[in-house]
């Protein structure tokens, strides 16, 4: 791995540890850990891109276009879970049974399929990296 990349990784790790240690709610901690994972993914994707270009074949992954869509997918799933839970509560409490299809539709929207390919590609990249990066 080129030395600049490893330095970036260490800096990120140090910064995120200080975020995690701040007194605060568990929500903040989990958000920070999610962000940490995302930044690791981004760095790994960038390193893959570097090596791929040395190979003169770009495997088609664009790291910077990928990073925001995963964060958006996570937020989107959270939003939908909250709203659907609210709807389910109201459905049962007020017994407005004709709204059952809407609640079912709400549950269909989670988890988002933007998340699944993110996760699968993350795993693929990680396994790919472990082979291609022992230079």
């Amino acid at each position, binding site marked *: 791995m080129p030395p600049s990349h490893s330095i970036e990784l260490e800096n990120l790790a140090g910064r995120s540890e200080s975020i995690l240690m701040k007194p605060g709610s568990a929500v903040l901690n989990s958000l920070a850990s999610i962000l940490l994972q995302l930044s690791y993914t981004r760095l790994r994707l960038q390193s893959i891109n570097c090596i791929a270009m040395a190979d003169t074949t770009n495997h088609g992954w664009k790291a910077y276009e990928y990073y925001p869509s995963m964060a958006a997918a996570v937020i*989107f799933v959270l939003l*939908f879970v909250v*709203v659907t839970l609210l709807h389910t509560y*109201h459905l049962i409490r007020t017994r*407005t049974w*004709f709204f059952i*299809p809407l609640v079912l539709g709400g549950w269909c929207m989670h988890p988002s*399929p*933007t998340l699944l390919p993110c996760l*699968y590609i993350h795993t693929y990249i990680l396994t790919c990296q472990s082979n291609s990066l022992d230079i």
Partner: protein
Amino acid sequence: MSAKQSPDWTIGPYVMQSTLLLVAPALFAASIYMELGRIVCLVKGQALSLIRVNWMTKIFVAGDVLSFLMQASGAGIMVKGSQSTGKGVILGGLFVQIFFFGFFLLSAVIFQRRIGSRPTAQSVDAYIPWRKHLFALHASSVLILVRSVFRVAEYAGDTDGVLMSSEAFIYIFDGLLMFFVMVIFVVVHPSEVNCLLGKGTYMTVRGGLGVNEMNVPV
């Protein structure tokens, strides 16, 4: 480990999940269609609606079920059969949905105008907030229409390449509109309509964050 060695990782759940995402608004539509009939009954405007109230819900829900089945089977065909046939069936289902939603929006708007010009006793009554619920129906219908048009654009174009970034963008756009639809219905929950019709006792208040008991004066 090469790419060939990756097992049948997530294609099954991925396809199933993206199909669910495709057909979820058809489920929203079913509930929305049912609400219009109830609002019409609430203001006793049966004579003023475009279609007879008995038939209204049945026609719209039948059209919605048809569009749901077409979209779901189209997605299945896309996986198991030829891609172009599947895409065609999905496009047909989306067009059916757009047609019925347009028809629904038309009925709702015409009903609102007719009640505005020839109000019934219940519609001028101050404690029946039918306008609010009708506006919720209009807003969510427009949102679902826009979303269906997006989906038509997505399926009619060339999606044969693995354009991960643009696909994610379209999904998020679609999902955001559907999120707004759900938020609209949490804030303007039809339990109020239900209670005022005498079919329930609890209604949602405070923007969806609480539940109140309602005693309807008969």
